């Protein structure tokens, strides 16, 4: 077990930011940690990284209680905690040199390598104060990868990135887990992002786990994954959808089909529509963590 939390809790004043959180993350997983803003995601990550002390409960990293390991355990972990802040008056290269040195010593070659991965090589000598938010975000990912850690904790890693950057980071996350055996703990509030990347997920709200398990199983069961399809002939498309038994639900809104299917079935739907003589103009995945979360809360209330 790479990460295990047992009744992990944190109280700020009278408010429980995290309450009795039990997580289990195995090696090689891409673990999506989901929740709306203020759910307790960042506080949990801060506790994992020793920035905030738990009010009660236990954190085990790599099978041992974090309190018995000391700071040395962070040699095995790379993290991007919330927004990427750096020493603005130093260059990206100098920032990585500093962080690498404090992580036990990193070669210049490795610094160049991670800067290449996040496409910042050409701006490496610029002071970070001149970087855009997206560039800082990429530098944040670079510093998390710098010392080649076994566990990578990323808090909203695609925030502020352009579509190309988002895809690159998603691909990088998958590659790190699949090809290099890294364990990824990915915090996000974008269910769509998690759906495309994670093998396992946990959803938390108000500091408590709402649901946890294998992503494919949990997300497949959800009614809140909608694919919007823009077509030339809505009525004909609707008939085709009704005939397809694997489509859970379909409705029309503003001349757009809203179809509930898992992402793996999207190509089949497009194929059926095209084969049926419908011109498909756009396929837009729409997912809403809030909706999914509400569905979970509503079902637990019943």
């Amino acid at each position, binding site marked *: 077990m790479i990460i295990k939390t047992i009744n992990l809790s944190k109280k700020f004043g009278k408010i429980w930011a995290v309450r009795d959180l039990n997580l289990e993350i195995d090696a090689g997983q891409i673990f999506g940690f989901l929740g709306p803003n203020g759910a307790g995601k960042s506080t949990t990550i801060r506790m994992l990284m020793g920035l905030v002390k738990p009010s009660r409960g236990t954190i085990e990293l790599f099978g041992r209680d974090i309190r018995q390991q000391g700071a040395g355990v962070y040699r095995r972990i790379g993290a991007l905690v919330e927004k990427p802040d750096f020493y603005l*008056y130093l260059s990206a290269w100098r920032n990585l040199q500093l962080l690498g040195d404090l992580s036990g010593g990193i070669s210049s070659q490795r610094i160049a390598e991670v800067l290449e991965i996040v496409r910042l090589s050409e701006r490496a000598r610029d002071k970070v104060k001149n970087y855009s938010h997206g560039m800082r975000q990429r530098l944040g990912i670079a510093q998390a990868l710098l010392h080649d850690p076994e566990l990578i904790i990323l808090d909203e890693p695609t925030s502020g990135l352009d579509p190309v950057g988002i895809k690159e980071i998603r691909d990088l996350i998958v590659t790190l887990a699949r090809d290099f055996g890294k364990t990824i703990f990915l915090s996000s509030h974008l269910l769509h992002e998690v759906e495309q990347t994670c093998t396992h997920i946990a959803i938390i709200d108000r500091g408590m786990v709402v649901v946890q398990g294998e992503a494919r199983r949990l997300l497949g069961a959800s009614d809140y994954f909608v694919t919007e399809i823009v077509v030339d002939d809505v009525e004909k498309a609707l008939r085709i959808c009704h005939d397809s038994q694997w489509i859970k639900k379909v409705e029309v809104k503003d001349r757009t089909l809203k179809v509930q299917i898992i992402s793996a079935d999207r190509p089949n739907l497009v194929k059926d529509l095209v084969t049926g003589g419908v011109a498909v103009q756009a396929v837009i995945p729409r997912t809403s963590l809030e909706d999914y979360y509400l569905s979970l809360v509503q079902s637990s209330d019943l």
Partner: protein
Amino acid sequence: MTPFIKTIRWELVKIFSKWRTYIGFGTILILVPLIMVLVRKYGIDIENEALRSFQGAFDYIGSVTNGLLVSYFLMNVLWIHFPFFIVLVAGDIVASEGASGTFRILLTRPLSRFEVITGKFIATYVYTLAIVLFLGLVSVGLGIAIVGGGDLLVFNKGILIFSQGEALPRFLIAYLVASVMQMTVGALAFLFSTWTSNAVGPIIGTYAVIVVSYILSVLQIDALQAIRPYLFVTYFNVFFVPFNVPVPWRMIAVQLGKLGIFILIFYALSVVSFIRKDIKT
């Protein structure tokens, strides 16, 4: 190089990469030469002021004003003006990491918080020592270069005359001792810096403590006698002590020891505060 030494090294890199660090050095480089030039031109007025209490007791011929005398007088800035340059850096060194959010990248490295805070504390002392010695070097060096060298007359329970050769080592000792006195101020600002994420608070807080302490230490009220030993400013005059004959080493050691205790207390409180701190920024 051990991780701890690396921490100190990088803290120094951070200190000397910020423009605020150079405010003190820049001010010294502008003000000291200006003062020396003014003294060279109007030095007699200062001399008359200094010798007023001795007028009538004896006659003197010529001028006692030289670079060493001006440097000696300049050391008075160490009481209340110069600490500003110390708190500017010491008050910022921890607080700024909280304000800028960089604790999130610094404290997630394989370093204990004790190593981080101690590294910062040592780097603060290195800066303090550097700027105090810089003041000494510029003041004495430019004093001799612009106003001229010669014997140093010190008015301390009478008149003491030191040859230039005797005075220079005493200046060195005085400035080294002053670095400890300044570090007491630095350690207090450092402590305040661990309590907040804004560097302005520690600067104002430290100055408030210094000013209040000075007021309490000079008021001739019997009730205040009892608290004076517990005010660190009581021992701040230690940097003038090397200009006694003979040098009262024991007195210097005792006063430095007392200032050292204050520094240790402020440091220990900083360590405890920092280790217990939740990083929420």
